[in-house]
Every structure is written in C-alpha cells, then in structure tokens.
C-alpha cells in the first residue's frame, strides 16, 4: 500500500500537468481535432474516385426523338455536364483544350441502327491523359447508356436486342459511392498520423524546453513518465476518433452498419499502437521539427500507401505485401471498412484485433526497452 502510493501520486501529478498543458497550449488540441477534420475534408472530398459534373461534348448528327431522349438523360445525370457541338472537329478542338473530358458521338444512322442488332451506334472519345478518370467516365457513360437503352426499349415495347458492346473493362456500379469505402480507410490513415504526432511532439517539446531533464532527476519511474503521456493523449486521441466517425456518418453520409462499440473498441486498440509509434519516435527525435517529420514519414506515408485504404494490397508485389503486415493501419482499415459497410463481421474483427494488440504491445514494449532515465 505505502509502496504503491507515491507512484500513483506521481502519475496523477503528471496527468494533471499534461491536462493543464493541453488546455493552455492549443497545439495538441489542434492536432487531435483540427487536423483530422482538415484531412478528412481534403481527402474525403478531394480523393474521390467518383466523377461528378464531368464536362462532356455531345455531337448529334441527326436529331430525333431517340437522341433527344438520350441526351436528356445525360443532361439529367449529375455525373455529366454536357455541351452540344454541331460537328466532330469543333468538339475535338474542345477536347484538345481540355474544356471537355470526352465526346459522345451520335452518328446520323443512330436512330436507324438502334435496334438493328448491328455494331454499337454511339462513339465515345476520351481524353486519356488522366487514365483513371477516363476509365471511370467510360464506365459512367456505359451506365447511363445502358439504363437509357433498357428504358427506351421498354417504352417502345420491344425486347432489348442487347446491342450494347459488352467489352466493358471495368465493372462499375453507379450506385456505390467511392466515398463509402474511402472515408473509413481514411480515418485509419488520419488517426495514424494524429496518434503518432501527439506523443512524438509533446515528448519532443519536453526535451526542447529542458523540462525532461528536470523530470528525469526526480524519483519518477520511466513507466510513470510513459503512462503520464499515454493516458492523457489516449483520451484526446479518442476524442479525435469520435469526431472522425461523426464526420464520416453525418458529413460524408457513410452508412455505419456495424456497432459503434465494436468500432470504438478496435479504435482504442489502434490508438494505443499509434501513440506507441509516437513515443518510439520520441526516443530518437528530441526536437519537435524532427519528431514531426519522422511521424509523417514513418507512420503517415506508409499507412497511406500500404494500408490498403486506396491501393489494393492484393495487387502489390509479394515482398511489398509482406511489409504491409507491420503497418498497424492495415488491420484497422480492414476492420473499419467492414464495420462501416458490412456490419460486425466477427472473423474479420477478431483476426485484426489480435493483430492490433500485438502491434500495440510491440511498440509499447520497444518504447519501454529504449527509454532510460538518462540523456543518452
């Protein structure tokens, strides 16, 4: 009892100090709340695989009710912003000037050939400079075209003769928004940065200001110093996590199909791992600038590229896939995507949670091993 008392008092003192500093110095609060909000905004809106309001040129050589109906569908689709051109050369000029992303060409025989079962009566030119977007636009065009065709056939009381060119390279379903799978993954990437930055920066700040030196000479134990950092920033980080989830659900309208408790539980595991990475960084980086740089390069960038949030891990070369196993964000991305979109898929949650526990234990263990009550 008497042995435990001072340790508890010291820890409480450290936590109280940290809480006061968090309240007075807005930088930690900025990292925990403003940074995830900004990153989610930027990436949530910017890194979208959806094409919206794509400017596209429409060249109708021989207007008819059928072409009017089809161009009307393009007009009404929020994917496209069509502009009418009278002939192909002027449309091509607009394509070259990058005023339009592509040209949809309805040839003079369009209406005639429509149900004849011949080759596809519409032509599509795309600006292939941005290949990714071009492919997506092609998908959308096919989507609009397919839907229109089905409806038109129905209206005309005819069976659809399947004249559509089935050389589709990408399967695309316009009902699924890329935001739905991007934002949950993004939360993992953003929380990696937040967690690592919080601890790395505040410990570096103590070194920079010379307070760590004074702290180390007191009877405080290393584990108390570490817990004194981990506990307050865990609370702060969970606040950031709640904000991110709230933004995902309300701002980006991502459906949350699994349970919130599972989500928060796994987030807590991941946050310990991320804070541990930050503490590990702080054992080498004793000034805030270096600590910040290291946090970005060793946690954020690998998480961005190798967590599978945007680039599919399955299509990476084998050795890169092997590396992804030490990226904590990878496991978190999987859990987040399935809890958000599919619900509580327990096999996925268990496997990844165990992996996160191992990662957290690994980082905290390394931190404990590398931390001494000494300056070198």
């Amino acid at each position, binding site marked *: 009892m008497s042995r435990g008392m001072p340790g508890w008092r010291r820890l409480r003192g450290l936590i109280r100090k940290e809480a006061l500093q968090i309240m007075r110095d807005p930088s930690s609060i900025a990292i925990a709340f403003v940074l995830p909000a900004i990153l989610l905004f930027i990436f949530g809106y910017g890194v979208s695989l959806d094409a919206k309001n794509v400017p596209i040129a429409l060249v109708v050589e021989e207007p008819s009710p059928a072409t009017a109906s089809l161009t009307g569908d393009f007009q009404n689709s929020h994917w496209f912003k069509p502009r009418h051109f009278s002939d192909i050369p002027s449309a091509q000029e607009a394509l070259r000037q990058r005023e339009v992303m592509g040209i949809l060409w309805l040839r003079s025989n369009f209406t005639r050939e429509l149900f004849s079962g011949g080759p596809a009566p519409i032509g599509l030119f795309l600006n292939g400079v941005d290949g990714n977007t071009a492919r997506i636009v092609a998908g959308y065009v096919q989507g609009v075209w397919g839907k229109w065709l089905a409806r038109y056939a129905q209206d005309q009381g005819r069976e659809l003769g399947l004249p559509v060119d089935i050389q589709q390279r990408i399967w695309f379903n316009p009902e699924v928004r890329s935001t739905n799978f991007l934002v949950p993954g993004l939360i993992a990437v953003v929380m990696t940065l937040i967690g690592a930055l919080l601890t790395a920066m505040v410990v570096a700040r103590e070194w920079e200001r010379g307070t760590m030196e004074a702290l*180390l000479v007191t*009877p405080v134990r290393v584990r108390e110093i570490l817990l004194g950092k981990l506990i307050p920033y865990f609370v702060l980080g969970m606040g950031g996590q709640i904000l991110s989830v709230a933004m995902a659900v309300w701002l980006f309208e991502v459906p949350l199909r699994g349970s919130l408790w599972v989500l928060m539980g796994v987030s807590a595991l991941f946050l310990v791992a991320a804070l541990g990475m930050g503490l590990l960084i702080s054992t080498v980086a004793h000034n805030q600038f270096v600590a910040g740089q290291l946090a970005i390069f060793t946690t954020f960038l690998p998480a961005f590229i190798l967590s599978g949030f945007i680039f599919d891990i399955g299509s990476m070369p084998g050795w890169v896939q092997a590396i992804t196993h030490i990226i904590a964000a990878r496991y978190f991305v999987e859990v987040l995507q399935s809890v958000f979109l599919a619900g509580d898929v327990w096999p996925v949650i268990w496997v990844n949670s165990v992996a996160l526990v191992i990662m957290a234990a690994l980082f905290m263990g390394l931190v404990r091993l590398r931390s001494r009550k000494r*300056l070198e």
Partner: protein
Amino acid sequence: MAYKATSQAPALMFSEVRKGFSGGGRKVTALDGVSASVKRGVVTGLIGPDAAGKTTLMRLVAGLLLPDEGEITALGLNVRRQPLEVQSSLGYMPQRFGLYEDLTVQENLDLYADLQDLAPRDRPERYEQLMHLTGLAPFTGRLAGALSGGMKQKLGLACSLVRPKELLLLDEPTVGVDPLSRRELWEIVYNLVEEQGVTVLLSTAYLDEAERCQEVILMHQGKVLDQGKPQKFTDTMAGRSFLVTSPKMNKRHLQRMLGEAPPVLDALILGGGVRVVTKQAQEPTAADLGGEGGDLSIKAVPPRFEDSFVAMLREQGQEAAPPLQPSGRQCSEAWEGPVIEVKDLKRRFGDFMAVDGISFVVEHGEVLGLLGANGAGKSTTFRMLCGLLPPSEGQLQVAGHNLRKAAAQARQRIGYMAQRFSLYANLSVRENLRFFASVYGLGGQRRRERVDWALEEFELADLAGATSGELPLGYKQRLALATALMHEPEIIFLDEPTSGVDPLARREFWRRINALAEEKVTVLVTTHFMEEAEYCDRVVIMDRGKVLAEGTPEEIKLAQKTGENPSPTLEEAFISLIEKNQPNLQKEQAA
C-alpha cells in the same frame, strides 16, 4: 559515532571519471580523468569556461549520464548502481530551470511536489518556506513563462527543493540573469546552506563568482586544474597585481605597451588605468614596464581569482599572442555628425515593449558597450541598428543614412557578428570566409586577398580546411569576427561576442577589437560581463527596454558612489542603478 563519520565524509567523490560523446563520426572527450571531492554543508563552485565539462559532471551526478570510466559517490551511494536512491536525495536545477512555462507558479510547485513524493499534509508549510525564501509569494497565480529571468531562476530553485534535500546541484544558475538577480540567488543559496545544512554544487562560467564560493573546483577542457578554497587560488597571486595609470597615454595604448613589457603576464583595462599581473611577485618599476621617467604611476591592488586562472593557463604553455601591429588603415569620415544616432527608438512585439524609447549617439571610432540582462532589449536594439528589424517608432541614423530609407547603403558599411556566431558549421574555415566575402559583394582578386588576409591576421591559416563546426569555441569566435570584417566595414556590431569563452580567448578577442578601434572603426558591443564593459570608451546601460544610464565607465561608477561604498565596481554601480529602477517595477508586477 557512525553518524558522525558519515557526515564528515565528502558529499560527492569523483575518482578518475572519464566521459566522451560521439557524434558526426568523431569522439569528443568531455571529461578526461576528473578526480575531486565536494565537502558537506558548504557551497562548492564548479568553475570554468564553456566546454570545460561542468554540465557533463553535473549530469553524471544526477544519474542522467553514465561515466565511461571511473566512479562517482554521492552521499555515500554509488551513482552508477543506485541512481534512484541518489535522485531522491538530491535537488537538480538544469540550465534552463526545467519549468513548465504554460503552468502557473503554484502548478509547477504542485507537480514537483507530486513527483518528489511530498505528502500533502507537509505541503503548506514547505510552500510557505520556499515562497518566503524566494519572494515569489505574490506571483503564485502567474504563468511561469510570464516571469522575468530572475524569477524563473528562483522558481526553478524552489521546484528542485520542494522536498528538503541534502545535496543541491545548480547548473549555471546565474547565466543570463541580471546582476541583481544573481546577487539574490547567492543570498538564497547561502541561506539554504546555513539554515538547512544543504550541500551545494554550483557551476558557473563567471570567474568572479568563484570568490563567493567556499570551495572551488576549477575546470578547463575536461580536466580539473585545481581545487581548494578561493583564497588558496588568489594567495598564489599575492603581490603580483598592480594598477598602472598614466596621465599622458590613452588607456588602449597603455595596455598595448604594458602587454609587451617583459615582466607582465597579463594586462587589462580597468577604470581609467590598466591592471597588470606580473610574472614574479615583485613590484615593477616604470622602466621595467617600458615607461619613461615618472609618466607611470604604479599601485599594488588585491589579486583576483581570474588572475590565477590566467596564470595557470599561461604556465600550461598558452603564450600570450604578440600584439597586433596597427595596419595604418584609417576609416574615412565621409559624413558629418555622429556615426550612429538613435532618437526615441521603440520596438513593440504585440503588447510587449522590447525597446521603449531609447536615445543615444556613437561617435566616430568609439567603442560603445550596451549593457543589460537578458530581456533588457539589447539584441532588439542591435537588430534595428543593423537594419534587420524595422523600428516601431523613432529615428535611426547609421553612417549618415536613415535606416528606414536606405538600409542597403548603410549595411555596406556595417559588419555584424551575431550571438552564437552565425557560421556554416559544415563548411570549412576558408569556405566560410569566401562565402561571407561574396555576400558583401567581393569577388575575384579582391576576395582572394581578403580571404588570405583573414587567414593570416586571425591565425587561421593552419585550419583553413577544417570544418568550422568542429573548431574550439575560441577559434569559432575568431572566425566569426573575421567573416564580419571581410568587406572592411566602418562600423561593427558584436552581439555577446565573448560569452562562454575562456579568459585567454576573451583577451585575444579584445586585443583585436582594440586594434580595430585604433583604425577608427566604430565598435558597438553588447555584453553582460561587467568587467568587459570596462574596456569600452562609453557604456549605455539598459533595463526593460529603457536606458538607465550612459557615460564612460568612470562616470557611471562615480554617479553611484555612496558613503558606504566610495569606489563601487561597475557591477555594483549597475546593481544600484537597477535597484533604483525597482520601486516602479515592483508596482508593475504586483498589478
């Protein structure tokens, strides 16, 4: 009896302690076989210039570093084996006080009380004691970051002592605080020693503080030169110090002449004359000193601690450099009036007035010293004079140019040596010189000539290829001065040029400044070494953004003469000036 035996054992014992640091592919020896002991219940000063190894030694005792070789015993405990036990019985104040600037005075105390396991029931009494000791009671609700340097230092001390300790380690507590706060700190330290029997180990680079210690360990370049009572050091110098004055000669000429005289070990300007230390304990005659019949008056003066340090270094074979030959260059007087004219100059940073309406002039070829503690506004004033920082209000003429309108023209005539020497650490000596010459628009033949001149003049030729970051401090300082002189400026600004260098390097530096003054170069220098201010023609004393006094060192001292102290030193005069300025100050702080 056992108790008595342990209490008489030294508080600290160092035996053959060695410590090196490696970094950047080379190894630096910080401590090279240090053996010393610290007696219980007294104040021991760990004295030496920067890089002597003082901080490393302190950190070894505090258990923050492990020695490579040797053993340290603190309060009978082996520091290597029982670091936690040692740490719980010592108080340690690191160089930057270890305070949380965004916590209040009270919150800092509470934190350290928690960390030091001070039971809550004992706190009120201890807090009251400490607040009484440090005079911080009215400020408990203030953020530590908003305290003045002197108050921070006292709070740092209170935090390291929040639980009564047997041993107190203070690492350079007096750096950068004004002389008044320094004096108060010494009073607190002696209070602790006398009333609570604390053992204090205090490091300092100010040699004059040695005389305030009961015991001294003198260190230089990782080695202990000697240990003992300060008396022991000054006793060896008895009968070797004299003040030489001459009615006819300018004090700089006099210093140069005396420096060349064979019996003289050291010659320094002090007041209106030159203080010499002789090689033997024998009063020199005017003829010995190179003077002609009756033009020199020689008076014996008491020895100082620094004399013995200089003597030891010289005996180790560090010869005094030969005096510089005047170059014969004379700066032109291309414009009318004073070289620098400052009128009602103000500089605001947010709500804070860093410089609050100062006025002074500097005449052609004058050496002007700008004195004051950290935060007095010296560096801000300097940056405005160099055109690096625009003033908020007021007028500023440098070399006949209004700095607001023609900063570029004025800058061509200015040389600036920044605090901490702005050198490119990974460039060689020659590359630094070449770079700074180019910056000032020198090229081709002219640049080559100036680089060669600097290498020779500053005795850097052998080191031309050395990486400047690896040079010893004294050489860095020389190189920094050389880079500021590449374009032969007519005005030169030196910001804390000698802080931390050893006394020989400081003498060497001033020898060059004197040579510049003889070329009629105008020199502006900031310093917090009061002794150094004696070498200036005139000084301006600043405190909290205002000029408190201005005049020759003699005039300043004379103005503060009192019945109790008929011949104050410049430091005493400075303290009394600041004290007179204090009543207003205390009102402001309480508000």
